[in-house]
């Protein structure tokens, strides 16, 4: 494998307390090393900015819901053809790109690791097949467990406490699917949606037929994940997404999991004041205040960007609300035992009060927080907008004048109800951008060899021209290096490596199968013995991150 010396670049590596130092970076055999020989390829990075490859902690790029969205919107991709070329596959772009194009475009943006944030475990083979066709990046997926009837039964049996059976069942499920972490989406609410269009509105509503509450589900599964020592803590999409006043639910959810590590997804969608039937207002400051006092909690923002989006979520009742707001297209899909799914193409309009408020709340979360390690960049792609809008979002954070210009174009009634007009003049530094786009997500994912450039780190590196226009700078890296190979140069793909599947593994008592098998037999239409993914072709090449039980 080629050895590379990146010479004279300005390095931003916050995980190693390197903030803009001019230094050389050496890569060999896919890793950052202290020195390389004289024959190493030299990349002249003088005047350029060097960071670790980007790490997206929360996006939707693969699996049945993503593919259903592709089928739903052929018109949306007709204008985004991608031609085949030497060594590269053709495809389509747009908000929900085809798989090869997804890998190419993330790589062209300087990202080298992406997490698919919501996969039905039953669909693991489908998710893995798509990820196999998503080149250039390392990828992981989180399995949906917040509405799993089998886990409901175990939680009820333990009276809501963490039990060894629950721990073992979660570890079994990760092993069975190749998943990386555990995702809870609207705990309990989706089960009620599938029963008869119901939902939960508080953490203490009972899930009909199962005698558990969202609070018990959160408490037990967050506790089990914590005790298992999985590399990534429980990843929570809280109840009442999008509902005015939901900040109370979010705060109560945070209190419920207190003392345990937890990551809150797309916090912007959960930061609303007001009354459910009324207009929302911002409660971003309350959420940020809570985070400041609770370092065990992190979040990604789920920034909305004005323009088209595709909402896709396991939270079926949320999609039904969007449907009833006049959506032309709507998909609902119910997955037995485990979860639901809703898809609605959507457009965020700058003149719309609610959309402008959502946009403003996202920026508030970024700008009010004092600890960038806690608040990470995401648009909940493609829910708040495409991952291709990350460069513009970075410019909004780094360039106050640009931000104020954009604010002036948005619904002023909404903007005035945020802290953005209240002297919030912060501008992110390059080091802070490096934290929210790679160092922070990698650390939160427990990927010790990613998100930084210390000796032994993965040789995933992005080199940018240091342009005053930060959007332009982050949209077109000068070089992207994946696992020690230059894969992008000046906006051109040079090669297309497969990338690794990242899985996690926690030990469990195999006797848990005796508990699970009869429960599977009662509920699933797939045999217990055929549920686990054993096909090597779907699970390799992989890197397994071991849990570290305390």
């Amino acid at each position, binding site marked *: 494998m080629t050895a590379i010396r990146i010479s004279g670049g300005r390095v931003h590596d916050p995980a190693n307390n390197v903030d803009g130092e001019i230094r050389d970076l050496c890569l060999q055999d896919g890793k950052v090393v202290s020195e390389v020989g004289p024959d190493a390829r030299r990349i002249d990075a003088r005047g350029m900015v060097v960071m670790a490859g980007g790490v997206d902690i929360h996006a939707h790029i693969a699996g049945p819901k993503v593919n259903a969205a592709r089928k739903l919107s*052929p018109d949306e991709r007709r204008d985004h053809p991608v031609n*085949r070329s030497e060594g590269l596959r053709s495809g389509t772009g747009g908000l929900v790109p085809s798989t090869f194009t997804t890998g190419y475009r993330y790589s062209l943006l300087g990202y080298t690791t992406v997490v698919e944030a919501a996969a039905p475990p039953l669909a693991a083979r489908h998710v893995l097949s798509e990820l196999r066709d998503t080149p250039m990046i390392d990828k992981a997926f989180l399995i949906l467990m917040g509405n799993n009837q089998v886990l409901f039964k175990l939680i009820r049996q333990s009276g809501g406490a963490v039990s060894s059976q629950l721990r073992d069942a979660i570890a079994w499920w990760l092993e069975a699917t190749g998943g990386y972490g555990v995702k809870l989406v609207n705990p309990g609410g989706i089960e009620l949606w599938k029963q008869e*269009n119901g939902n939960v509105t508080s953490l203490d509503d009972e899930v009909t037929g199962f005698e558990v509450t969202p609070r018990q589900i959160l408490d037990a599964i967050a506790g089990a994940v914590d005790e298992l020592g999985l590399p990534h803590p429980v990843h929570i999409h809280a109840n009442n997404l999008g509902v005015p006043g939901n900040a109370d639910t979010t705060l109560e959810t945070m209190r419920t999991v207190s003392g345990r590590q937890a990551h809150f997804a797309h916090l912007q969608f959960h930061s609303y004041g007001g009354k459910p039937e009324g207009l929302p207002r911002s409660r971003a400051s309350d959420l940020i205040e809570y985070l400041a006092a609770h370092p065990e909690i992190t979040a990604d923002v789920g920034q909305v960007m004005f323009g088209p989006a595709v909402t896709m979520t396991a939270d079926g009742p949320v999609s039904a609300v969007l449907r009833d707001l006049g959506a032309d297209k*709507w998909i609902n*899909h119910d997955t037995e035992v485990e979860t639901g799914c809703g898809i609605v193409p959507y457009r965020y309009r700058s003149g719309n009060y609610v959309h402008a408020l959502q946009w403003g709340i996202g920026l508030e979360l970024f700008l009010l927080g004092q600890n960038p390690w806690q608040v990470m960049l995401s648009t909940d792609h493609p829910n708040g907008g495409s991952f291709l809008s990350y460069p513009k979002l970075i410019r909004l954070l780094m360039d106050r004048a640009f931000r104020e210009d954009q604010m002036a174009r948005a619904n002023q009634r909404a903007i005035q109800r945020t802290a953005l007009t209240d002297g919030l003049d912060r501008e992110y530094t390059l080091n802070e951008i490096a934290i929210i786009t790679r160092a922070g997500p990698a650390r939160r994912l427990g990927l010790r060899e990613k998100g930084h450039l210390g000796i032994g780190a993965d040789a995933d590196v992005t080199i940018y021209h240091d342009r005053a226009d930060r959007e332009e700078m982050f949209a077109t890296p000068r070089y992207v290096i994946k696992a020690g190979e230059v894969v992008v140069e000046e906006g051109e793909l040079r090669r297309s490596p497969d990338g690794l599947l990242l899985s996690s593994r926690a030990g469990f008592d195999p006797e848990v199968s005796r508990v699970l098998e009869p429960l599977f037999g009662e509920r699933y239409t797939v045999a217990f013995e055929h549920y686990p993914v054993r096909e090597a072709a779907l699970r390799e090449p992989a890197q397994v991150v071991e849990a570290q039980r305390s």
Partner: protein
Amino acid sequence: MPEFGPITCAGCGLLCDDVLVDAADDAVRLTPDCDLGAQWFSERLLRPAGAPSATIDGKPVDVGSALTRAAELLRGARRPLLHGFEHATVEDARAAVALADRLGAVIATDDGEWAGAPAVPLRGASTATLGEIRDRARVVVIWREDPESTHPRLLERLGIGGGVERTLVVVDDSDTATAGRAEVRLGWPPGRDLEALTTLHALQRGLTVRAGELELPLSGLLKRLRAVPHVAFVYGAGLTAGAGGQRRALALHELVRALCHERHAVTLELPGAPGTRSADDVLAWQSGYGGNVDFASGHPELVTATQPLDDVDVTLLVEPGSAGAAEIALGSLAAGPGVEVWIRTAAAGVDGGGTAHRLDGVPLALQAPLPGEAPSAAAVLTRLLAEVER
């Protein structure tokens, strides 16, 4: 031949994975009993000994010679078409789309009449896996399909007749086996399906409708649907094939969407062949489009049902359900008389493995209980791509 199982049966889109196969004698028997599945296994387990691994113009050749000839045909083609996929796996489809991309070919994942999918991009759909319908639907409406013949264990797998209070409604004016099991039968000519669906939709919205003799049965059906919290519609080519099929499919999805406001309502589509769902899903994730896609311009373009493919000059059949005319065919069954190049492939689920997507989208492993020498279609297609690129 031994008994084996439980394994996954790829005889229809249900992909039942609890099947025990008894092939001890000349006949194949399955447990649970399924004539269609037994026939499928039988055709693949009881193949004549000494069958060639490949042929050119019906004469046995080695696989390498067949690949060389197939590559020549494809390289010389102005407008190649890859189709079939009735028994394709996800892996077969991945390799096929890669080849189509390289060739600039057209790829068609459904050789039959369009089965409703084109309606989905217009407004979407509400769908569910088998277990959801089994556990929740209290009224199941089967619209002009006969799963007792095409998907013999569907009713069992949806829990119909399983003791739970559930009403099976069949809309069909033919005396099918499925209609014979209905608690409620409604029948009118197929040409009135659109009228029936739009009338139901209008009635659901509270509009006054004059529908002649349909009015009474439709009002009765709507009353049943409104009396329960969860309903399911099963449909397929019986509703959506032929002229106006897209409008009929759209009308069904609009009706279901309207019903969803007050109760949970879902649909389940029966595909024409077991491999259709897998191939369509793969094509969608690799190209961005389901259905039929043309790569001639260097990128994928959706081919609509109305666009003729009369300029196709070389066809490549991938895992067809029966012998058909084509220049090239890759399949586990013997080639038809019109095939110039045929390469025998392993039957996924018998002598080859792979992954397949059930009709409701659930992905399952296909085991290879009797692994043999024949390569998978995926392996042949990959070699063919290399040969084309040589």
